[in-house]
């Protein structure tokens, strides 16, 4: 076994020897270079070499905790929150972070490059070990062959959020996937056009620290105390400061159990609740007329015949705009305080309720249209749809309108239902009606973890040559797998099981490809479908002293080497360099990962950050506070929005063809109450997130397995007469597929629903992948939406029976 493989580097060894005054000596080194030494139990720690190094953990929970790691004899032995963080709120770790002490050495790691055994089928899971040299030579040759025959964009490169292979697609000129394959963009599709921000993920909110200023924190579809575990302090600070925290959730989730009040709701009916609340707010006159008139599109005039917003003439572009290729937006038309029809930016007090005839077109205001479209959506109607008592809907509406209110959306719950955009749009409308935005304690969107909605650092980055660019990213996986544009796949992360509903279709597609390459530290479900599996490092491993910098909880975090690459793994930086060598473009990449990190700092446009160096970060304990974090980040405080009008725009005339200019109730595609399919498949299968996972990660962390393994959680009322007891194996099925999994009998689950945490893959269920069951419906208006169609994972019905 090589020195590197044993986890003992030359550097550590020498340092260790010096510290132990030779006591460790060769005996120590000898024991660590043999298999026996590798597996030896803990006994005498006393003379061991020990040091501390910092890295940062996963980003995809929205956190990216800076971790202080204790390394002993070249092995990671402890992980603690980094106490160098400037505020105790950012000294964080969770059970997933701590589990890494075992996990990175665990049975789930891919230990060497693997090649599918000749003659076996993809998915059969038969592999032989090969060298990196052979793997990369063969992969690059085959990619060149495929691209030569079918074009550069016949290669799909998909890198997940935790990956560090950002240059791969450009190096190959490969295509990517569009709009995150419809994941996490459901509510954003409906909300974000209104604020002009949020990036399609509804990330338009202020920071969670602002909740202390709220009278009401209304959470819908966000199990904050689990999925944003390391920002849970903000939740309790708000509650202790007197904010009423209301959790709307079909299930008695962890957050529901810690909230001031839990309001159970029928799954997929968030839009109906909000529409009912809107009607009550309108009926009671609880609107913020000044905000609506001056800062929203409610006074804008709409052509009654076509449904289009009336626009004036666009101003001539300035020189700068011409250079930047920007076309100035045409202003909108309003009726001003004197009854004249003018451009929206020329009126002092645009009227909310007005009609006009403009160039022969009969026009009315958006607000008038809302009054009309809301007529059907009484609170009584909403109570019937949502299962929430009418009085409760009215009480909640009054509380929300009174404000200041924060409305926290999420990427669970209704975000995974085909009508998610309608709920996001309704949320935009209720927010704009009540002015619950752009002031302390008021905001809307996904209030998630530290690196997503805190202060951003504006880091720079390494620039590739101008001619080295990735191909198109214009199709989601659901479209790709039904087309023949892709012939080869290079994925870092789980593409096959994780990204796309109705996994059976993905499996068929993968079988027909010419080449499948998967790089991952862990042997996920995905790997079974590969021709080559490449073992890459976790964030704890590096072959240099420093690897990268990134934005964490309101701070910049430095990634130091904690341990040498484990087993035969290599960093993704190294992998990309080796591929670049084979493509003849090595000089396009930085010489070292450390140079990459230095460039990320030095090329920042912000002087606060571009004067930072790796040395300064290191001296400061591997973290550096972002500028201005003394106060919680707030947004839209000047009441201007990065939209065409500068106002909050609630009328979507781009959805006129679908009659969704204003939010119109639409039932879920499959998981609605009266679906006749319920006779066969009576339960909605909610596909939710959990503290025990980040998507498909940590399935194989054995310390977490001691606490939780995949189950389907079901209310006892839904098991009556089926002879199913807690812990039994059940068959879960629908027309798309079936799996076998243990059942958890749990009163927290809404009758008529079942809950599984996402990414229950076949190595961790009794049999089969839960993704085999999920709904891949594409709503007709999908392509017209900002981020394309949502992937409606939870808009799924299943049957359940004893296996």
């Amino acid at each position, binding site marked *: 076994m090589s020195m590197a493989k044993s986890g003992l580097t030359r550097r550590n060894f020498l340092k260790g020897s010096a510290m132990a005054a030779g006591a460790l000596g060769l005996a120590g080194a000898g024991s660590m270079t043999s298999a026996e030494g590798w*597996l*030896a*139990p*803990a*006994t005498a*720690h*006393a003379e*061991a070499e*020990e040091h501390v190094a910092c890295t940062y953990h996963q980003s995809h929970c929205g956190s990216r905790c800076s971790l202080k790691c204790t390394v*002993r004899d070249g*092995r*990671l*032995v*402890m*992980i*603690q*929150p980094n106490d160098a963080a400037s505020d105790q709120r950012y000294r*964080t*770790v*969770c*059970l997933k972070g*701590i*589990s890494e*002490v*075992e996990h*990175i*050495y*665990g*049975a789930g790691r891919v230990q060497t490059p693997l090649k599918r055994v000749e003659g076996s089928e993809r998915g059969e899971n038969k592999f032989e070990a090969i060298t990196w040299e052979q793997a990369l030579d063969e992969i690059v040759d085959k990619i060149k062959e495929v691209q030569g025959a079918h074009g550069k964009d016949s290669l799909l490169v998909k890198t997940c959020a935790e990956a560090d292979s950002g240059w791969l697609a450009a190096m190959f000129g490969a295509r990517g996937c569009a709009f995150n394959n419809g994941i996490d963009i459901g509510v954003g599709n409906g909300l974000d056009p209104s604020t002009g921000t949020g990036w399609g993920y509804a990330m338009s909110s202020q920071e969670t620290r602002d909740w202390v200023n709220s009278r009401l924190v209304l959470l819908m579809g966000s199990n904050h*105390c*689990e999925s944003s*575990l*390391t920002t*849970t*302090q903000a939740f*309790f600070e708000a509650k202790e400061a007197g904010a009423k925290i209301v959790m709307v959730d079909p299930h*008695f989730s*962890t957050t529901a*159990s*810690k909230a001031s009040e*839990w309001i*159970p709701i029928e799954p997929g009916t968030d839009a109906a609740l909000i529409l009912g609340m809107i009607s009550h707010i309108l009926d009671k006159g609880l609107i913020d007329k000044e905000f609506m008139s001056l800062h929203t599109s409610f006074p804008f005039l709409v052509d009654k015949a076509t449904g289009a917003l009336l626009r004036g003439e666009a101003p001539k572009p300035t020189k700068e705009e011409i250079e930047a290729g920007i076309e100035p937006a045409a202003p909108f038309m309003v009726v001003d305080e004197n009854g004249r029809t003018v451009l929206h930016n020329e009126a002092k007090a645009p009227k909310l309720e007005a009609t006009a005839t403009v160039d022969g077109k009969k026009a009315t205001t958006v607000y008038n249209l809302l009054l009309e479209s809301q007529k059907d959506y009484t609170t009584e109607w909403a109570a019937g749809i949502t299962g929430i008592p009418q009085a409760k809907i009215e009480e909640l509406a009054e509380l929300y309108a009174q404000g200041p209110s924060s409305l926290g959306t999420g990427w669970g719950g209704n975000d995974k239902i085909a009508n998610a955009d309608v709920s996001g749009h309704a949320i935009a409308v209720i927010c704009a009606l009540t002015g619950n935005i752009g002031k302390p304690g008021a905001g809307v969107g996904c209030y998630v973890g530290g690196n997503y909605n805190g202060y951003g650092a504006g880091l720079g980055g390494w620039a590739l040559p101008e001619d080295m660019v990735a191909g198109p990213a214009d199709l989601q996986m659901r479209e790709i797998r039904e087309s023949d544009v892709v012939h080869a796949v290079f994925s870092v992360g789980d593409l096959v099981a994780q990204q796309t509903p109705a996994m059976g279709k993905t499996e068929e597609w993968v079988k027909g490809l010419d080449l499948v390459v998967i790089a991952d530290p862990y042997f996920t479900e995905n790997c079974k479908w590969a021709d080559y599996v490449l073992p890459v490092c976790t964030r704890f491993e590096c072959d240099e002293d420093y690897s990268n910098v990134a934005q964490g909880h309101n701070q910049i975090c430095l990634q130091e080497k904690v341990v040498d690459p484990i087993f035969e793994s290599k960093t993704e930086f190294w992998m990309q360099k080796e591929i670049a060598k084979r493509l003849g473009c090595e000089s396009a990449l930085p010489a070292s990962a450390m140079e990459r990190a230095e460039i990320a700092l030095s090329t920042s446009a912000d002087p606060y950050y571009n004067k930072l160096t790796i040395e300064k970060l290191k001296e400061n304990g591997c973290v550096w506070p972002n500028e201005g974090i003394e106060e919680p980040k707030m947004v839209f405080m000047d009441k201007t929005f990065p939209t065409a009008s500068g106002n909050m725009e609630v009328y979507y005339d781009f959805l006129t063809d679908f009659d969704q200019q204003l939010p119109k109730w639409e039932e879920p595609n499959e998981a609605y109450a009266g679906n006749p399919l319920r006779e066969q498949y009576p339960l909605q299968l909610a596909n939710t997130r959990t*503290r025990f996972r980040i998507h498909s990660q940590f399935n194989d962390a*054995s*310390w*977490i397995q*001691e*606490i*939780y393994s995949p189950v389907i959680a079901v*209310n006892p*009322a839904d098991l009556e007469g089926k002879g199913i007891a*807690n812990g039994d194996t059940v068959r879960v099925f629908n027309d798309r597929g079936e799996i076998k999994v243990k059942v*958890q*009998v*749990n*009163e*927290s*689950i*809404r*009758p008529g629903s079942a809950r599984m945490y996402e990414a229950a893959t076949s190595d961790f269920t009794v049999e089969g992948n839960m993704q085999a069951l999920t709904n891949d419906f594409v709503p007709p208006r999908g392509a017209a939406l900002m981020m394309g169609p949502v992937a409606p994972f939870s808009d799924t019905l299943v049957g359940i029976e004893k296996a």
Partner: protein
Amino acid sequence: MTKLAIAVKLDRCVGCHTCSLACKMSNNVPDGMLWNRVLTEGSDVVDGAQGVYPNLTRTYLPLACQHCENAACQKVCPTGATYKDENGRVEINYDKCIGCRMCMAACPYNARVFNWNEPSRGGNPAYGDKEVPARGKGVMEKCTLCKERIDRGEAEPMCVECCPARARVYGDLDDPESEISKLKATGNVRILLEERGTHPQVFYVQ
């Protein structure tokens, strides 16, 4: 005198199990064993609830050695392996433990775990605090209040340091100025199985 203890703020505990794994890591607790577990009260499943949907409540109850003033485990230990130390902690002298498991049966909190077999610790066995002593087959173990960390001057046990919700408070009950003493003085305190007369030092804030 010193009387070290932990208070758990139940209203802040989100049942995340970070304390369980922080403890396991720091104390080199073997596979399949935990010194500190998070229970869901009145439910035999993780994240269950009490009541009938939708009239539900849930209380997470992190449970480890209660460091009782009148420790049942200590009374039954035939060798003196279990002892009350000068800082008010219930500790085990592993060298004196003969594996009779009388203490395990006596503890009303089921806080003790026993090495029935030679302990296994996966592919990276040497994890944890360097000063935590090794325990072999036939030895009892449990929460020490991170004795080794604290005795060399670190501020808090690992479960307290790592708690994401800041639900755990560590300190000296004999110091009236300590946060934990002030919490106890509020009277909003729950003691587990108070009727057993074990007088736990660990307590829960409701």
